[in-house]
C-alpha cells in the first residue's frame, strides 16, 4: 500500500536524491547494508507475531522490500532497526493480518509451523518449541510487546513508538504477559513437585 507522501516525507525524498547526486552514501545504501543484521530479527518477530512460518516469511520479506522502496524516508543517524520494526508492524496490521485470518488457521502449533529445524539437536529443538508454545498462549498484542522489550531490548518508549501506542499500554501488556507466564511457571513447578 503506498500512502500519499506528507510534506516532510517529500523533502526527505528530495534530500535523499541530493545525497545520491553528491556521491555520498545514499539512504538506500544505508538500508541495504543494515538489512542482513536486522532481517533475522524481523523474521523471528514476524514468526512470534503471526504464529505461522509461511506468513512470517512473507512479512519479513515484504518488510525488507518496503524498507528499500522507502529508504529515502529513513532519517540517517536514527535507528534503522526500530524504523524497520515499525514498517513490519504496519504491514502486518494493514495488509497481512486480515488475509491470514481469512485464510484461516491462525496460530498453529509449533511442530506444525515447521519450526523444528534440521540444524538443531533434539534437546534444543524441544526447548525452543516449549518457549514458542508458551509465547503462543499470550494474546498477539502481548506477544509483540514482549518480543520488542524483552527480546529486542527496546526501552518502553521505543517499543511504544514501534507499536504506535502509549507507554502506559506497553507497561500494562508486559504486566499481563508476566502474570500469565508467572502463573504457568508456578503451575509447572507444582506439577513436577
Amino acid at each position, binding site marked *: 500500500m503506498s500512502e500519499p507522501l506528507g510534506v516532510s516525507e517529500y523533502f526527505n*525524498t*528530495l534530500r535523499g*536524491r*541530493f545525497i*545520491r*547526486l*553528491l*556521491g555520498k552514501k*545514499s539512504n*538506500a*545504501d544505508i538500508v*541495504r547494508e543494515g*538489512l*542482513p543484521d536486522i*532481517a*533475522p*530479527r*524481523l*523474521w*523471528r518477530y514476524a*514468526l*512470534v507475531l503471526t504464529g505461522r512460518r509461511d506468513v512470517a*516469511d512473507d512479512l*519479513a*520479506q515484504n518488510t*525488507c*522490500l518496503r524498507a*528499500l522502496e522507502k*529508504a529515502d524516508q529513513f532519517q540517517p543517524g536514527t535507528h534503522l532497526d526500530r524504523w524497520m520494526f515499525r514498517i513490519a508492524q504496519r504491514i502486518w496490521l494493514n495488509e497481512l493480518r486480515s488475509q491470514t485470518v481469512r485464510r484461516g488457521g491462525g496460530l498453529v502449533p509449533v511442530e506444525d509451523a515447521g*519450526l523444528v*529445524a*534440521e*540444524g*538443531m539437536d533434539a534437546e*534444543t529443538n524441544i*526447548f*525452543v518449541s*516449549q*518457549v*514458542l508454545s508458551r*509465547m503462543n498462549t499470550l494474546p498477539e498484542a502481548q506477544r509483540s510487546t*514482549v*518480543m520488542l522489550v*524483552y*527480546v529486542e531490548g527496546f*526501552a*518502553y518508549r521505543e517499543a511504544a513508538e514501534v507499536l504506535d501506542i502509549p507507554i*502506559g499500554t506497553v*507497561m*500494562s501488556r*508486559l*504486566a*499481563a504477559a*508476566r*502474570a500469565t*507466564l*508467572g*502463573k504457568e*511457571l*508456578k503451575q509447572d513447578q507444582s506439577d513436577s513437585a
Partner: protein
Amino acid sequence: MSEENISDELLTAYLDDEVEAADRVRIDAALAEDEELQGRLALLDVPLDPIRDAMAQVAAQAPAPVLPPASAQRRFPLAVAGGSLAAGLVLGALLMTQLTPAPKAPGWIDYVASYQALYSTETLAGVELTPEIRAAQLASVSTAVGRPLEAAASVPGLDFKRAQTLGFNGKPLVQMAYLSADGVPLAFCIISKEQTAELKQLQREGLQAASWSDGSHAYLLIGGDDPQLIETTARQLQSLL
C-alpha cells in the same frame, strides 16, 4: 505504605528498570514490609533468559531476504547539478523527481544473484542433513517445480547441502545449495519457464553464473568467481538431468 496500592504495571516497570527514582524508593520501602506485595513481585519476576536464548536459536533459522539488485537503485552523476549551486539544486530536484528513469525490472536471475551474494562458506558449512531429511527435501522441491531433481544432488566434486523452495512472482523457485571442494558456496536454481536457450555464462553481483533452459524449465548455476568451475559444473548438471 502498603495501602498505597502499587499496581502490577508499576511492579513490572520496577523489574524492567523503567521507574522514576522516587517510585523506586517508594516500592522498595513498601516491599520491605508487605508480604503480599513481595508475593506479587515474585510471580511477575519470570525468568526472561530462556525466552532470549530460544529466540536466538529461532533467529538462526531465518531465511535470507531476497532483495532486488543494488543496480536497480541508480546513482546519478555529479555533473547534473552544474551552474549556480542553489538554482542547480532546485532544478536538479525537480528533474530528479520528474525524470528519474524507471530502472529495468529485475528478473529472477537478478533476485537469485542478490540472494546468493549473501552466502558465505559459513552459511552452509554447518548444514548436515540426515538421509531422511535429504530425501524429503529433494522430493519436496521436485514436486514444487514439477520435475525430478534428485540427480542434481550428486554432482561429482560438490558437497550438496540442502534444497529449498523459494518463490518468485508467485511461482516456485527451487534453490539447491552446495559447497565446492574449496568451500565456495554455489546455488543451482530451477524455475518453470516455457523457453529454450543454450547454456551461456554470465556475471551478476560479482558472481560467476551459467544459465540455460529446456522448454519447460530455466536453470541457473551461480556462485564464486571461477568461470571454469561454473562451466564444468553446469555441464555436469545438464547431463545429470
